């Protein structure tokens, strides 16, 4: 089945797979009604899906270089779109985004605009040209376009820094979900997550990751949408996305009624609220007043957009399509599949907020007596693991809006329980979260190890290495990088979202302008590229250390805080690159001819098939 006709049979294969998954969900629902415990259903969901991914990974094993690095450049447009969407949507998108909107309201939704708008930059400025280039990795482009070992090495540095920041957060997320679903300690969950990730990618590299990511996309999108439609229908909205206007207005009215009170830091501390838990103090749909609020929104959106267009694990997905034309189309399909989840997240946040706040709904808790709320089973469950907390600040025994603390992740993970949906849905959500975190971690670990094995080992250390040796090095690096990520994740250093935004900022600081100008500005030369990469990276990192709350914690300049340091990095990168390029000699005629060839969408790739 995986020989010859595999590509032609893809729709059929994944159609069967989707059908099989739905049958599995129904089977779980039957088992639940037959009295199988919730815990066992959770275990079966996660274990079954992970086994399927591992099977796909095994069936896609390969010993060819271009299959290992770029899936043989034969991934059809739509399927590459699905794989990119899974690659893109991380544990943060799946588990934390709705929670972020729940607490942050309109301001937080800058992430939504940023994480989708970035694809416009990818498709207009980069993807088709990088595909025409025919490179294996992003530093491969930098190294060939600018020539010499130094630019390649600098680009590798940025790639490793950005991707590694990101991957620890993903392994952390797989660990959290695995430990909760399989009921094992977090430290063990991290290693279980890592083994699942490696099973998908080790034998088949990019080819295996591509086909598991498609499978993971299908699981995660089903798992995200079913609870939303189910809950929406409970409230009488057949298609919630188009019909929640009244609910959003109702929330605004409830906010006015209850009041958005800010707790003082001293109060929070003396009540003993566990770290990472938040309470609602931002309006859901109102736009905060003032120029600074506008700038905060825009600067975050800009960082996420430009960062998207610089993240190597996303750009490398477009190296796998058969042609320049299909690379372009594939960006469009990627965004479409991402859009399906992203335009649902605010609806989930709206529905789950209403469930808790609206006194007309049986699930509401705000305004009830605290003793009563503490007796609700799901509140007890989540309180036991310190994900939920109640602090009676004014001592009246009634739960106020500012007295209810919750971790953002709970919005996605607990909403099915809160809304009284059967447990099978919670199991499904756990499987979806696992799929989201695994697929991103896979893409990232592969991006790092491919880059180190191709750009550092093969291109710089040992250019005479044969295919077998190259692939062994690639696989050893994959395991080492994964293990390192898991080790750091098991030390629990950062929360999921802080680290994710940093990856975007690192990538945009060091890579955006060297990549874009490499295609769009013929005059850009080697010295300029090195200055752009190192200047941007240094400035960005220095600024992060200057403002980062965990580092020097100085007052941010113009509201550019640690989530937005890429603004500084990328600006410095642009200036350094342009100034240094203009001060030094223009690139050779051969390089200029290469840029001309990159701009022509048809014809041979710049780099050969086996390079």
């Amino acid at each position: 089945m995986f020989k010859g006709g595999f590509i032609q049979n893809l729709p059929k294969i994944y159609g069967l797979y989707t059908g099989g998954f739905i049958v599995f969900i129904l089977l779980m629902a039957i088992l639940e009604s037959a009295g199988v415990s919730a815990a066992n259903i959770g275990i079966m969901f996660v274990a079954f899906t992970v086994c399927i991914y591992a099977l796909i990974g095994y069936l896609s094993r390969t010993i060819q270089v271009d299959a290992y690095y770029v899936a043989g450049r034969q991934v059809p447009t739509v399927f590459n779109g699905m794989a990119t969407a899974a690659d893109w949507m991380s544990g943060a998108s799946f588990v934390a985004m709705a929670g972020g909107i729940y607490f942050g309201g309109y301001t937080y939704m800058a992430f939504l605009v940023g994480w989708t708008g970035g694809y416009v930059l990818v498709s207009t400025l980069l993807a088709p040209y990088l595909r025409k280039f025919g490179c294996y990795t992003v530093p491969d482009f930098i190294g060939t376009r600018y020539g010499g070992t130094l630019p390649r090495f600098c680009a590798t540095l940025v790639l490793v820094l950005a991707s590694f920041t990101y991957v620890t957060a993903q392994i952390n997320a797989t660990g959290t979900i695995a430990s909760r679903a399989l009921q094992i300690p977090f430290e063990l969950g991290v290693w279980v997550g890592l083994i699942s990730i490696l099973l998908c990618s080790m034998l088949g590299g990019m080819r295996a990751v591509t086909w598991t990511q498609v499978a993971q996309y299908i699981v995660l999108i089903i798992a995200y949408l079913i609870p939303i439609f189910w809950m929406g229908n409970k409230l009488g909205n057949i298609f919630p996305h188009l019909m929640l206007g009244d609910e959003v207005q109702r929330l605004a009215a409830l906010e006015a009624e209850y009041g958005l009170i800010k707790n003082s830091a001293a109060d929070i501390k003396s009540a003993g609220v566990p770290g990472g838990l938040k309470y609602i103090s931002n309006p859901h749909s109102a736009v905060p007043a003032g120029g600074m609020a506008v700038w905060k929104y825009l600067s975050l959106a800009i960082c996420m957009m430009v960062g998207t267009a610089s993240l190597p694990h996303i750009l490398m997905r477009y190296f796998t399509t058969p042609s320049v034309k299909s690379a372009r189309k594939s960006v469009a399909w990627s965004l479409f599949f991402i859009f399906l989840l992203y335009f649902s997240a605010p609806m989930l946040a709206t529905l789950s907020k209403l469930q808790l706040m609206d006194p007309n709904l049986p699930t509401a808790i705000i305004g009830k007596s605290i003793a009563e709320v503490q007796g609700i089973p799901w509140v007890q469950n989540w309180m036991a693991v310190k994900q939920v907390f109640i602090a009676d600040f004014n001592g009246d025994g009634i739960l106020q809006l500012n007295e209810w603390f919750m971790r953002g992740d709970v919005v996605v993970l607990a909403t099915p329980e809160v809304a009284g949906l059967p447990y099978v849905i919670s199991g499904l959500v756990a499987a979806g979260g696992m799929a989201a975190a695994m697929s991103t971690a896979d893409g990232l670990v592969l991006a790092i190890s491919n880059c180190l094995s191709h750009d550092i080992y093969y291109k710089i250390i040992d250019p005479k290495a044969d295919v077998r040796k190259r692939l062994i090095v690639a696989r050893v690096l994959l395991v080492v990088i994964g293990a390192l990520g898991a080790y750091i994740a098991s030390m629990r250093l950062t929360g999921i979202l802080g680290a994710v935004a940093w990856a975007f900022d690192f990538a945009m600081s060091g890579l955006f302008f060297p990549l874009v100008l490499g295609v769009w500005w013929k005059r850009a030369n080697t010295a300029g590229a090195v200055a752009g990469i190192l200047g941007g990276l240094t400035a960005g990192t220095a600024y992060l250390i200057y403002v980062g709350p965990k580092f020097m914690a100085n007052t941010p300049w113009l509201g550019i805080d640690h989530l937005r340091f890429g603004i500084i990095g990328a600006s410095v990168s642009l200036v350094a690159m342009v100034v240094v390029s203009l001060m030094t000699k223009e690139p050779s005629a051969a390089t200029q001819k290469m840029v001309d060839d990159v701009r022509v969408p048809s014809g041979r790739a710049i780099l050969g098939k086996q390079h």
Partner: protein
Amino acid sequence: MSNKEAHWTKTRNHMWVTLAIWFFFSIVIFMFGESVNQGSFLGYPLAYYMSAQGSLLAFVILIFWFANKQEKIDDEHGYGGEREDD
């Protein structure tokens, strides 16, 4: 002007038009978020709606349009080949 140059000029202009539309939906609307939010669509406050769904949808449509139009430009100049490296 050679065919190659003509193709590149058109490609570049197409890129600028696409980015101008992108700029409108990603930046301009939210620059005036407070006043935009006075309007409403499907019962949602307008800036909230654009941030939650509207701009996102605009980007999806924009990229499909961009890809299709660019394919037309490529075909006009004889660069529309499907596969290149076999």
